[in-house]
């Protein structure tokens, strides 16, 4: 049983059946899953959701699957952390981190979209699935397809971080490195999907795949006590998750589950790949593609498929955008680790660094509620920390040796700036 009415072109409104299809035949516009909201509003309640499983499938009524889910049964429902130490440091009243670096089983937001796409792939009868990926999606498709008994074919840029390659290969997919950047891989995958009868999750299953990203937004709203944060800062790569968080918020408002209090959505990109932020700043919805050059490889997409929609949502919601340099990104990764014990990859550092810029420029007022969306885990990209962390002393297993070390290097003190934190007390009373 599902509430799906079919697929609809986001541009010209043409309607299509539920089938593997990425775009409109008439205008090539992207397709969106259409639901029967009238029936949904009679069925979906806070209580019904709260009684569901502790996974993204608690929002199943609002996802485009027909039968029982077969992938990602433990994915989603990641922590929403009230970040009080970080809030003090930044001088803001109410700050939350939505931490998909803790997602199961592959530690990124991609477990959400893959859970939905693979369930749909099995319903369509596919036996082979695939994707074009900057790493996190590769990791997730390989894992979930192994668990679902599907074959997988995964294409990645040739120069990805080792953690993402090993973290993918361990699940036994057919992995192919493509000479070029993500946009080259993506073009090739579009042609492969055209030629081979496979379910490429972010090509011909894309309308279903992207719906999984809504669950990140549903969870923020539910975990915040059935309300929306006034500001949500979201990283933009292909531009998938940002409009879907907005769609999630709008659906909850439409179904009467949360109040509409004007949630603003802000876009975060790396300065070395910021076509969407540049377009937002220029006030146009046609971005200019870029050749990415940033350590934030998981979001290094210079030709984002959903870029125009990310730009539109930022504009419609009254949000804004900011980009961060590689140094700012790495500093933000450290700051998040040393205040909240969350180790994110450079994409997460990008989002936090952009948030800090938006706060400092006044575009996010310090007394309003803020949610920072962290979409990936730092343990997959440890090479970006090369040369940044202090050398680790090695001593003999003798107390004298330890005494000597303490005398030489001083008393135990953590890295970072915890001494600055207590001064800002009294800011968390909101």
């Amino acid at each position, binding site marked *: 049983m599902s509430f799906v009415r079919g697929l609809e072109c986001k541009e010209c409104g043409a309607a299509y059946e539920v089938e593997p299809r990425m775009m409109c035949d008439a*205008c090539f*516009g992207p397709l969106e899953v259409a639901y029967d909201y009238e029936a949904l509003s009679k069925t979906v309640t806070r209580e019904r959701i709260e009684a569901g499983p502790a996974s993204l499938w608690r929002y199943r009524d609002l996802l485009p699957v027909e039968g029982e889910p077969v992938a990602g049964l433990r994915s989603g429902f990641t922590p929403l952390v009230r970040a009080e130490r970080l809030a003090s440091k930044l001088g803001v009243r109410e700050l939350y981190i939505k931490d998909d670096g803790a997602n199961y089983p592959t530690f990124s937001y991609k477990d959400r979209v893959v859970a939905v796409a693979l369930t749909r792939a099995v319903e369509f009868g596919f036996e082979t699935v695939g994707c074009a990926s900057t790493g996190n999606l590769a990791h997730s498709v390989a894992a979930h397809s192994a668990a679902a008994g599907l074959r997988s074919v995964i294409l990645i840029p040739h120069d990805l971080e080792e953690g993402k390659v090993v973290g993918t290969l361990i699940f036994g997919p057919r992995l192919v490195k493509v000479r*070029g950047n993500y946009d080259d891989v993506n073009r090739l*995958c*579009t042609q492969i*999907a*055209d030629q081979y009868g496979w379910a490429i999750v972010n090509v011909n299953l*894309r309308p279903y795949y992207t719906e999984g990203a809504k669950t990140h937004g549903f969870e923020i709203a539910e975990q915040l006590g059935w309300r929306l944060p006034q500001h949500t800062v979201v990283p933009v*790569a292909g531009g998938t998750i940002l409009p879907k968080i907005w769609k999630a918020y709008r659906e909850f408002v439409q179904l009467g589950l949360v109040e509409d209090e004007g949630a603003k959505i802000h876009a975060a990109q790396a300065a070395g790949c910021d076509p969407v932020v540049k377009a937002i700043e220029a006030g146009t919805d046609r971005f200019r593609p870029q050749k990415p050059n940033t350590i934030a490889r998981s979001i290094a*997409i210079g030709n984002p498929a959903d870029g125009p929609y990310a730009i539109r949502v930022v504009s419609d919601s009254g949000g804004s955008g900011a980009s961060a340099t590689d140094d700012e990104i790495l500093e933000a990764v450290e700051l998040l680790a040393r205040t909240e014990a969350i180790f994110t990859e450079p994409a997460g550092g990008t989002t936090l660094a952009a948030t800090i810029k938006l706060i400092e420029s006044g575009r996010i007022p310090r007394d309003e509620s803020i949610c920072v969306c962290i979409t990936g885990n730092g343990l997959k990209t440890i090479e970006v920390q090369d040369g940044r962390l202090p050398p680790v002393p090695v001593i003999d297993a003798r107390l004298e040796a330890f005494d000597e070390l303490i005398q030489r290097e001083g008393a135990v003190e953590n890295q970072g700036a915890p001494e600055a934190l207590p001064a800002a007390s009294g800011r968390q009373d909101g």
Partner: protein
Amino acid sequence: MADKVSVRIPTVLRSHVDGQAKLELAGGTVGEVLAGLLDAHPTLRGRLLDDQGELNRFINLYVNDEDIRFLENLETPVKEGDSVMIVPSIAGG
């Protein structure tokens, strides 16, 4: 006589070109090749161009694997043996 370049057609458009996956067309720039394609197969016009006659924003054109937006757009020169690809843009992420 102008050089011939190959033009790769995605499945979704092949019904407009008698089912062919690849065509040989003459032209000195991507724009000229495109104009030749539309003259020979007029029903493609409404698919590839928008109401203002601009390239549909959900279509990307490549010359020898490079997006023409990194080259000279429709003014990008092409020569004998070059390959032009028409690829829908809604994928990935």
